[in-house]
């Protein structure tokens, strides 16, 4: 039962990677829902040195037919096998603009509609105030794919997901492989879970989020960079869920991510190791 409780609230809307909650058998027609709000301190974009504190909405819903919404991911459990979960997965990849990940275009001081028109001289010194000034804006992307999780033991969970559709041309692909240690319990109301994993991406993904095109190099402070695919990052995390009552929970998360390979060498990367911290209060309906 521990793993179910641990995985009951594993996703915040600010999560950088797709999360899949555990299979949740329940009476026909029922649902299990968490809604909450908290704060998150995270790098402005993956690889950024500067940080931003944002409100963190928390949402997780599971229905008796196996459909779930978990943060920015949604999917469906197709398996009824308690030790093997799999199914389709959709996830929204946050966009990125000059000020960092997840901002709207209205906050951007420098327009990006210069693509193909580079005759005008650009004062690069004027762009230094914006971390990603001159870089192409990447909109939020809906990715599609699948997930599969296996429990070699009720306390251990091996996770995998493949998502396609990120990046400027919607052709970025990202494979997540991870392991979670569940069931580290202080008492019945305090649950701690540890996780670790790696991400492998294709060239298109890294070109969009870590590459610098010739056009971008001319209008930004970054040199041209031809990003390649491969191992992109390794990450570890710890989550602490404190259930105050059957309805109220405090969920806190610490994630450390280290960029690897071509992404790590990108001129956009100011720090190859990023830490994200969040805490939120959630109500269980």
């Amino acid at each position, binding site marked *: *039962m521990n793993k*179910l*409780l641990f995985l*009951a609230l594993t996703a915040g809307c600010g999560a950088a990677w797709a999360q899949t909650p555990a299979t*949740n*058998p*329940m*009476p*026909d*027609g*029922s649902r*299990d829902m968490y809604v*909450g*709000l*908290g*704060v998150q301190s995270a790098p402005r974009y993956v690889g950024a040195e500067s940080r931003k*504190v*944002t*409100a963190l909405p928390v949402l997780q819903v599971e229905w008796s037919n196996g459909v779930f919404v978990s943060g920015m991911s949604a999917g469906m459990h197709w398996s*009824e*096998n*308690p*030790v093997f979960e799999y199914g389709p997965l959709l996830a929204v990849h946050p966009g990125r603009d000059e000020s960092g990940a997840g901002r709207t275009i209205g906050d951007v001081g420098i327009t990006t509609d210069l693509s193909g028109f580079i005759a005008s001289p650009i004062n690069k010194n004027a762009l230094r105030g914006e971390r990603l000034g001159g870089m192409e804006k990447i909109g939020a992307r809906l990715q599609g794919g699948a997930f599969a999780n*296996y*429990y*070699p*033991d*009720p306390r251990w969970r091996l996770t995998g997901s493949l998502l396609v559709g990120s990046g400027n041309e919607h052709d970025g692909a990202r494979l997540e492989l991870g392991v979670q240690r569940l069931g580290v319990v202080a*008492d*019945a*109301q305090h649950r701690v879970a540890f996780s670790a994993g790696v991400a492998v991406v294709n060239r298109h993904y890294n070109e969009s989020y870590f590459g610098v095109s010739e056009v971008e190099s001319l209008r930004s402070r970054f040199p041209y960079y031809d990003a390649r695919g491969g191992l992109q990052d390794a990450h570890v995390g710890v989550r602490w869920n404190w*259930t*105050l*009552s*059957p*309805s*109220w929970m*405090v969920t806190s998360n610490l994630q450390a991510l280290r960029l690897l390979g071509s992404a790590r060498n990108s001129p956009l990367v100011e720090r190859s190791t990023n830490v994200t911290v969040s*805490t*939120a*209060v959630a*109500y*269980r*309906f």
Partner: protein
Amino acid sequence: MRCARRLLVPIALLLAAVPAAAQLRAGEWVSYRDAYRAMVRFEKFGGAKNLLVSQLQVLPAERGALGDGARLALAGKVTQLNLPLDALGRTVLPLQKSAYDENAALVLNRNGVPFTVLPRVTIAPRTDGHYDSADLRAACGQALAYARYVDASQAARQCAGVRFVFAPKAASGVRLRHADGQEQLLAALPGAAFGAEAEEVVPVATWRFGTERAQVTMHDAPLAIVPVFE
């Protein structure tokens, strides 16, 4: 300033949660939904299970904290149900959609006793107290198949025997009658029914399966017959 504003709403939510949580003492309740999830797996198991029973066991933080008369209260906005516990702290959990939907709590009628719950699958006792070794093997096989269904790490384990668990004052043990007519007495010794530290110490008699067929009889009805895997 913007950061402070962002903190205000979560703090306000936390302040709202604390009075609600104060109605239940830390560690002295369990979410019915979480217990339901653990127990409904047995119902959904498609393999043979006619020789088994599934119950929820209450494990107090300290041994001996339950005592006589312990019970769980299934408490929701509408649902109110008392679930008496047996001498091993077990009860049959009703699987109710109404209790699930109203997010009910399971509360113990013992103040100051933190507890957890675990699903337990045991072999159904017979009313006549007579067991054939073939039936016990078959029941253990059903329990092992279920254990493998919910826990992949059980794949390499095999049925080794059964453990008869008796009430504290019943210590007559188990009598085996082999096919060749020889009889053997298995004494009941103090032990834990399921091997958990917080469990009550009760008389248990463990019979390891042999190659011969045997009849198993006992004077006192067992509280539980626990399959033993190795």
